């Protein structure tokens, strides 16, 4: 019997959803609230949800506590460059894996899949040594180049490409479309939901990445927002929660903007994969 016809179940169903949402939303709201409080209000008990005075100045304080414009720009450059590089490599690789049978193809795909299982923490040392040898430490290249492709992206996109009917490509061949046009005008548009979803995951992962920049860089010139924000904890005289939360807001807002732009496509991607 469907849920709609059982009032009690229906109530429980929605209650469950509300609780689940609360678990995600409350910490987030707490961050917003704290980022707008004065220092005094962050430590009073019982805690207050609504600050008595909105302290926009926390944001300027956070922003000015270090070279935040530099951090911000570095984050933008790193995340976007990674995304562009990954798009280039995964589209080409996924197309080859999905559409061509060639010697060693299965082996290469197998190797690609194996790399999915190796965490970054395991290979950071050799990569560090490599970057050091190339003299790229403390440059943005050290943050970008190691992520110039994505096994996960190749895997997801290969699946989508495989679902494109063979006849579409054949029709395009008969229409004298060159290979690059088949990829860009047929395959990529057909796989758009997958690409958008992948882009979002990749962007968030690298925008929020703390570990990698921490290892590869030591100078502010090459560091990104997450490191800058973590330094806000070290202000003299204990944790300045209001400033730290304002910093976190600066980190999170771009993600929210990207997410709201991509939302329509993400839902589509999941609906598609559910139906097929």
């Amino acid at each position: 019997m469907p849920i709609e016809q059982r009032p009690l179940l229906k109530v429980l169903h929605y209650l469950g959803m509300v609780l689940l949402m609360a678990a995600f939303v409350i910490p987030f709201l707490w961050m917003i609230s704290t980022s707008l409080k004065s220092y005094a209000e962050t430590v009073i008990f019982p805690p207050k949800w609504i600050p008595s005075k909105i302290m926009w100045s926390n944001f300027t304080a956070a922003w000015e506590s270090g070279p935040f414009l530099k951090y911000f720009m570095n984050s933008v450059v790193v995340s976007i460059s990674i995304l562009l590089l990954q798009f280039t490599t995964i589209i080409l690789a996924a197309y080859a894996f999905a559409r061509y049978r060639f010697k060693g193809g299965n082996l290469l795909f197998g190797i690609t899949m194996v790399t999915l299982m190796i965490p970054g923490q395991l290979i950071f040392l050799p990569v560090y040594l490599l970057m050091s040898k190339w003299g790229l430490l403390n440059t943005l290249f050290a943050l970008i180049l190691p992520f110039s492709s994505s096994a996960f992206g190749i895997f997801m996109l290969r699946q989508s490409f495989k679902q494109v009917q063979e006849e579409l490509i054949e029709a395009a061949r008969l229409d004298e479309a060159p290979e690059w046009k088949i990829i860009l005008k047929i395959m990529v548009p057909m796989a758009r939901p997958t690409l958008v979803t992948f882009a979002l995951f990749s962007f968030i992962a690298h925008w929020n990445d703390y570990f990698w920049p921490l290892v590869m860089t030591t100078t502010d010139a090459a560091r990104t927002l997450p490191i800058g924000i973590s330094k806000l904890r070290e202000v003299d005289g204990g944790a300045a929660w209001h400033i730290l939360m304002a910093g976190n807001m600066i980190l999170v807002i771009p993600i929210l903007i990207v997410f709201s732009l991509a939302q329509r496509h993400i839902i589509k991607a999941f609906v598609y994969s559910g139906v097929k």
Partner: protein
Amino acid sequence: MAQIMLKNIEKRFKQEKVIEGLDLTIEDGSFTVLVGPSGCGKSTTLRMIAGLEQQSDGQIWIGDRCVNGIEPGKRNVAMVFQNYALYPMMTVKENIEFGLVNRKMPKAEREKVIREITEIVGLADYLHKKPQALSGGQRQRVALARAMVKSPAVFLMDEPLSNLDAKLRSQMRTELIQLHKRLGATFVFVTHDQVEAMSMGDRIVIMDKGRIQQADSPMQIYDDPDNLFTAQFIGTPPMNIVTRSKAVEAWDYQVDESVHHIGFRPEKAVMTMDKKAAVGKLHIPARIVTRETLGAEIIYQLESTVGTFYVKSFLKPLETAVEVNVSVSYTDLFYFGQDGQRVRALEPTEVQERLVIAGGGYA
């Protein structure tokens, strides 16, 4: 304009030979239909002409050019697929335009061609819709228009009508025939439906198991089938076939040892109430099992000592008669040898029959 020649074509998928020793000439400007049961290699043949599949052996000529190794886009052919294969993210216009853009046709010229063609196929009002928003028939027209704008010498169509409902299908049949007349290009049309083949083609190529069984005009194939397969494939219901041994036993019919099967068309058999054999005719006592009324004609299934067979009649239905006698003129019989090939030399002819009528006994 182009004639297509397939010379000793062979096609293997891995070890499996699906087409062997195929020789075929498709006349310039003809409407040639490749027909045969599912899996006999029609699509593969068509796709080899298009260049979408590489033949394992042999040569393909389009016009005065051997196209082995020439890519699909450069063969001056266009193809219409069974599932239309329209680009879903492009509008109707973009779909039709894609091939022209790739050929770098100037925009003004493109617009003109698209306007003309969409006028012909009746799509002018749908140019800015996406394929999903169209009905099956309209999608079919987009696929046609996409092929037509390139004004190819050869149109290749792989079961293009099989996704349409019956009414639309017969309408599209007529339209395709008219289109062929109008364009004068060579049409190669694949179908598994013999009725479609008969009604559309000016030349029919019947295939079975990767081999051509017969290539002829529709009437020639119907009147003068080369072999058992062709005889049974064309015609609704198919030709009645009786083995020689049964015929000898049941009808006391004398025929040479080299004949293994005897056949006659259901529409050439006549049901009578006469108990006695008429001169020059085969006489088969039988019982009506079922009657299928199709309007103008009626198809009877009959049971006799040689097994079931069909009779097609355009006369008023036989209401009550259950036991009937079927009479078939000797000249309407077809003989087939052990290998299924026609044995024309031994078949009774008009001349012989006249002799029979004049002089009695028949050997």
